[in-house]
């Protein structure tokens, strides 16, 4: 191989190596729990940090929605069929928020285990649940067996 072509080849290989390393690092990074998503089971086990904004998801427990009179504050419970957490939200709930439907709440956990939500995200039917919630529910089912 003539020297010029050899140099080019080395350069291109170097570039490809760099890109490969980049891809591997991205894959590694994505598997870390960067979104701080926790299931009710993990939260009740104390795996979630308090005083830090986290996400929690599951199904809204039927019969658990309780609104306070005279304000927008609503208390409800979220479950992954393995544990239940209490959530308190002050604001307008999304239209698609319903009992027995999937929900993701974002907020801070206090020392009593109450999650004060800054925002509530709801999806309509079960096939369109956020993947984190589906995954969490599957895990809980496996653990229950």
């Amino acid at each position, binding site marked *: 191989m003539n020297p*010029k072509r050899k*140099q*080019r080849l*080395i*350069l291109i290989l*170097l*570039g*490809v*190596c*760099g*890109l490969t*390393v*980049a*891809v*591997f*690092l*991205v894959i*590694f*990074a*994505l598997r*870390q*729990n*960067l979104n*701080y998503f926790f299931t009710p089971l993990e939260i009740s086990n104390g795996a979630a*940090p308090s005083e*830090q904004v986290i996400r929690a998801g599951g199904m809204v427990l039927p019969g658990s929605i309780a609104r306070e009179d005279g304000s927008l504050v609503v208390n409800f419970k979220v479950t992954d069929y393995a544990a239940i957490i209490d959530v308190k939200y002050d604001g307008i709930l999304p239209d698609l928020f319903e009992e027995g439907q999937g929900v993701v709440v974002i907020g801070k956990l206090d020392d009593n285990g109450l999650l004060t939500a800054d925002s509530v995200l709801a999806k309509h039917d079960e096939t369109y649940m956020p993947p984190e919630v589906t995954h969490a529910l599957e895990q809980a089912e496996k653990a229950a067996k």
Partner: protein
Amino acid sequence: MIKLVQHTLQRELTLAYRRRADLLNPLFFFVLVVSLFPMGITTDLDKLTEMSGGVLWVCALLASLLSLDLMFRNDFEDGSLEQMLLSSAPPQVIVLCKIFCHWLVTGVPLTLLSPLLSIMLALPGHALPVLMASLLLGTFSLSLIGSIGAALTVGLRKGGLLLTILIMPVLVPVLIFGTSTVQAIVLGLAWPGYLAFLGAFTAGAFALAPWLTVAALKVSVCD
């Protein structure tokens, strides 16, 4: 190829040594600006701890930008840049060596200064190694991306400020990943993910920047 690398590194380091007074500027800037933050915002140690990662990172980035213009300017002005591009040596290798030297004389000293400054900003001790790792990667990214900007502006008289404007948007992810890493460890959360993102960006920049820089140099030299 090895000889080329050896020779270029030697040349760059010798030239850098001859202008070592210039190279102290970024370090002084770093110390100065970091000191301004507690004086200007708050001396409350808890609040400083929250801000420390971000402040150190922003100041380190800005300081590194100061010496970026010098990467190609001297060679451009005396004509040796044109010679490098015309020679049979692959210009990407020469550019990589220049980037590496810039990092050695700017990014690495800044990183070595950071422990001292982190004490001033009340950064918890256990966060220090991660801070330094993030700064090492981040300043290397900055040298890589900055070389593209330096190459684009080397032919212009007042290239310095334009250089900063051009590459600032591209540096935003570096800043975000770097500060997130430090803030994660300060808050006691998972930091390897953020550091990995920073590493990925740096690796990607390593793969792509030399080619873009060479293209930009060719535009500037033919102006």
